[in-house]
């Protein structure tokens, strides 16, 4: 099956985020909200050395149900976790973005959201 990159959003278009720009946010998880329609992540961090930390609101592009099927859980991230998040920023310059990738600074563990169609008829298990 041809698997095209496709947003798995349940709720709204993600066009308010700029897909051509990737910002690297270095900081600490303040909150991780595991709710519909889109899971939310708040990180206090900096995007440039020497910058004063700011609270960023980061939207994951899909729901707890769909994220669970990609291996995420509600315990994937906790307040206090030191992280580096790659995000597509809001076009209007506010401190918000659409999630692309996260690396846990202490363990090196990487979290991504595979924006693809789910596999065709995955075997029962």
């Amino acid at each position, binding site marked *: *099956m*041809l*698997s*095209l990159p*496709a*947003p*798995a*959003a*349940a*709720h*709204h*278009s*993600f*066009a*308010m*985020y*700029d897909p051509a720009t990737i910002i690297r946010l270095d900081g600490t998880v303040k*909150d991780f*909200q595991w*709710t*519909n*329609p*889109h899971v*939310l992540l708040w990180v206090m961090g900096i995007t440039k050395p020497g910058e004063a930390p*700011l*609270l*960023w*609101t980061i*939207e994951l592009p*899909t*729901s*707890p*149900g*769909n994220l*669970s*099927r990609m291996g995420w859980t509600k315990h994937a991230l906790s307040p206090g976790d030191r992280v580096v998040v790659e995000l597509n920023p*809001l*076009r*209007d310059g*506010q*401190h*918000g973005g659409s999630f692309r990738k996260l690396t846990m600074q202490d363990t090196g563990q990487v979290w991504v959201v595979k924006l693809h*169609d*789910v*596999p*065709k*008829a*995955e*075997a*029962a*298990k």
Partner: protein
Amino acid sequence: MRRLLVAWLMLAACAAPAAAAELPDWSGTWTPFIGDQMRRIKTDPVPWTPAAAAQIAAMAAEEKAGNPRGLFIDCLPEGMPSWMLISHNALEFLFSPGRVTLLGESDGNRLRRIYTDGRAHSTDPDPSFHGESIGHWEDGTLVVDTVGVLPQAYIAVSEAVGLPNNGDLHVIERLHLAGPDTLHDDLQIIAPHVLTKPWTTTRIYYRQRARKYEIVEGECLQGSFTPSTDKYGNAIFVPVPQVNGNPKPQ
């Protein structure tokens, strides 16, 4: 379990005009083929009226410019026919005597009841987001006729582009297996106030049997709230400040 199913199917056979033993197996969870949804917009173009097409073009330009309308940020149901057209979330079918029920994920209101007990449409159905659906079986194909949809329900081509049907919507669907684990919904959408002719298109769903695909509860509005505690120590939800349906950056 199988014995129970057989007994249940026999019961269904007594109650429903369709011979229940001939009903296909649509068990499991069905996930939409999202890439194909997007391709179909080009291969099966929507026959918008000129006035509708102008509005659609403006909405598409706004989305491209980063100002999407967000048709569903109010968390009202996607309704018919948008649920079938653009959903990115899983659905399941429940067969019971005289009725097929569709349930969906990530929207607590996502529910369609399709009556297969031989009844006719009501003379004056109360309008609803999903309308009044009457179905019958033709050799494993569920043919569904839907009327009584609210004029405000969108005919959406994406979550940011689409128009209300504006009344007199009529949707005819033929749902059938196109392979052991592939389901097609062949739709004919008749919307005389926004389309110049019926729009004919297909949506594809894949069967998933792995437990991780089972439908989970999802309430659209829940993300607009965050857990908190009131002055008595009760666990409560409080609103998250939002802008255009998104959490407001601090």
